[in-house]
C-alpha cells in the first residue's frame, strides 16, 4: 500500500516538523514508481510529481497523521484536482437533437458504449436514435442493431460498405426529422496516425456538427494513451473522454494521461459488457484506483 511505503521512506520523521526537500525525494520516487506501474505516462507522472513536491516541501506535518499519509493525501487531492472535481455531463444542444459522435482506436469499446449511452438517455426519459456509422468492420452494423433491439432503441443504418460520412449525416437528419432529442453516432475504430481515416472523421464532424465528440479509450491502455489523446484532440477536437473495461484489474493511469494532455474531462466509465454497466466518472474513485 502506497501510504505504508511512504511511511517507511519517511521513517526519520516521527514527530512534528516540516517535510524537507531531502527527505521527500525518496517518497516522491515511490509515488512516481506507483504512477508508472499504474500506466500513467512518463512525462505526465514527472510533471505531476513536481506539483506534489511543491506542495509538500515546507508542508506542516500534522500531529496525528504520519508524514507518509500526509503526502498521500496531497497526492490524492492533486489527482482529483487534475481529473476534475465533479461529474461533467453531456452538453446539450439548444435546438434538438443533441448530436454525440463516438471516436477512438480499434476495439476500445465504442459500439458497446453507444448502446450504454443510449440506454442512459432512455432511462432519463429521452429517446435516443443510434446511428450505425461503422460501415467497415464485418458485422458492425449488425452488432449495433442487435444492441439497439435489446434495449428497444431505434438504429439508423445503411448497411456495410456505405459511405460513413453520408450515413452519419443522414442519420442526424433523420433524428431531426423525427424529433429525437438525442442522436448517438458510432464510428469505426481507427488509428490516430491513419491520415485518411482521421480526415474521414473530420468530414464526419463537419457534416453533423456534434455537441459532443467523445474519445472512447480502453482503460487498460498504457503509455500510448497520452499520444492517442493528444492526436485526437489536436487533429479532430474532442469534448470529453470515456474510459472502458474498468471492471478488470487495470489501474487505469491512462485516465490521468488523457486528462493531462487533452485537458478534456472524462465523462463516463464503462465497467462491464452489459448495457447498464456504465457509471458517471468519479475523480476520487479513479484517484484511489490509480494509487493502488
Amino acid at each position, binding site marked *: 500500500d502506497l501510504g505504508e511505503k511512504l511511511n517507511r521512506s519517511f521513517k526519520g520523521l516521527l514527530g512534528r516538523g516540516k517535510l524537507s526537500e531531502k527527505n521527500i525525494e525518496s517518497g516522491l520516487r515511490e509515488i512516481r514508481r506507483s504512477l508508472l506501474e499504474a500506466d500513467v505516462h512518463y512525462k505526465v507522472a514527472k510533471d505531476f510529481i513536481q506539483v506534489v513536491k511543491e506542495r509538500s516541501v515546507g508542508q506542516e506535518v500534522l500531529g496525528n497523521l504520519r508524514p507518509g499519509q500526509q503526502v498521500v493525501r496531497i497526492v490524492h487531492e492533486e489527482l482529483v484536482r487534475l481529473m476534475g472535481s465533479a461529474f461533467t455531463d453531456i452538453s446539450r444542444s439548444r435546438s434538438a437533437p443533441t448530436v454525440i459522435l463516438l471516436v477512438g482506436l*480499434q*476495439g476500445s469499446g465504442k459500439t458497446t458504449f453507444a448502446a450504454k449511452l443510449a440506454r442512459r438517455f432512455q432511462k432519463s426519459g429521452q429517446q435516443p436514435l443510434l446511428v450505425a456509422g461503422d460501415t467497415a468492420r464485418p*458485422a458492425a452494423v449488425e452488432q449495433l442493431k442487435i*444492441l439497439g433491439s435489446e434495449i428497444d432503441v431505434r438504429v439508423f443504418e445503411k448497411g456495410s460498405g456505405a459511405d460513413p460520412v453520408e450515413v452519419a449525416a443522414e442519420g442526424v437528419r433523420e433524428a431531426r426529422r423525427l424529433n429525437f432529442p438525442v442522436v448517438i453516432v458510432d464510428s469505426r475504430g481507427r488509428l490516430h496516425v491513419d491520415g485518411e481515416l482521421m480526415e474521414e472523421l473530420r468530414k464526419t464532424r463537419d457534416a453533423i456538427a456534434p455537441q459532443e465528440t467523445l474519445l472512447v479509450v480502453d482503460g*487498460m*491502455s498504457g*503509455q*500510448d494513451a497520452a499520444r492517442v489523446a493528444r492526436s485526437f484532440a489536436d487533429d479532430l477536437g474532442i469534448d470529453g473522454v470515456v474510459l472502458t473495461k474498468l471492471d478488470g484489474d487495470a489501474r487505469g493511469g491512462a485516465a490521468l494521461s488523457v486528462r493531462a494532455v487533452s485537458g478534456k474531462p472524462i465523462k463516463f466509465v464503462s465497467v462491464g459488457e452489459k448495457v447498464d454497466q456504465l457509471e458517471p466518472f468519479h475523480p476520487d474513485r479513479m484517484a484511489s484506483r490509480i494509487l493502488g
Partner: protein
Amino acid sequence: AALASGLDAESREALEEILIEADVGVAATQRILDRLEKADAVGEDAIHNALRDSLLEVLGRAREEPEIPGGRPRVILLVGVNGVGKTTTLAKLAARYKAEGMRVMMAAADTFRAAAAEQLEVWAERVGVDLVRQRSGADPAAVAYDALESARARGVDVLLVDTAGRLHTKHNLMEELKKIRRVLDKCEPGTPDEVLLILDATTGQNALSQARLFKEAVEPTGLVIAKLDGTAKAGIVLAIREELGLDVRFVGLGEGVGDLERFAPEAFVDALLS
C-alpha cells in the same frame, strides 16, 4: 560504478524514459538498466548495441511450431480479453494457412457477444473456408466440440477456434474457457495443439496480469501482439517472456486479412528503441 560503465545518470534516465514509454514497465526497466551498467559499454553506440543485445537475449530464440501427429486436424484456440483482435487474427491465420495449401475450418465459439458469429461468417466467406457455428447463446464448448468432430470427419488440416473476449479476473468466464479446452481434448486427445493469447499492443502493464491468469487457466503456447501498426511498442512482452516464458508468434499490423507477420525480434527491438 556508473562512471566505469559509461552509463552516467543522465544517459540512464534517457534510456529509462525510452523503455518506460515503450511499456517495458518499471521493474523490468530497472533490471535491464542494471544489467546494462554491468555490461560496461562505453560510448553511445556501444551502449545502444549492448542494450539491443540484452533485449534480444530476453526475447530469446523463437521456438519451432509444434509437430502435429498426422491424420487429424491441428487445433488452434484463440483467447484474450475483450476487443484485442482475436476474431480478426483468426481470419488472418486462416488465410495464411489456406495460402499454404491447407484445408482450414473456423469455429465460432463466441456465442455471447452481439454479432460475433456474424462477424466470423463474413470472414469465412472472404477467406473461403467453412465455418461451424450455432445460435447466439449456445454453449461455446458444444460449438468447439461440434467443430472438431466436423473438422475430423472432413479431413481438415487446421481448425481455428474463436472465443469470446473475457477479462482474466472473471472467474466464471475463465472456468468456461478451461471447459472449452477440456472438451476439445476429450473430443481429440492432445488438442488444442496451440493456444494463442492475443494481446493488444496498446495495453500497458495489465498485459502482464492478463498473461499470468490466462497462463494459469489454459496454458497458452504463444502470444500474438495485435495492432502493432499503431504507435504503441508493446514493451510488456519482455516482462511476459522473462516471467512466464511465453513467446510472441505473430504480430498484427492492420485490419486487413493479410496484415499478419511472423514475429521478428530484431525489428521489434529496433522499433522499441527508436
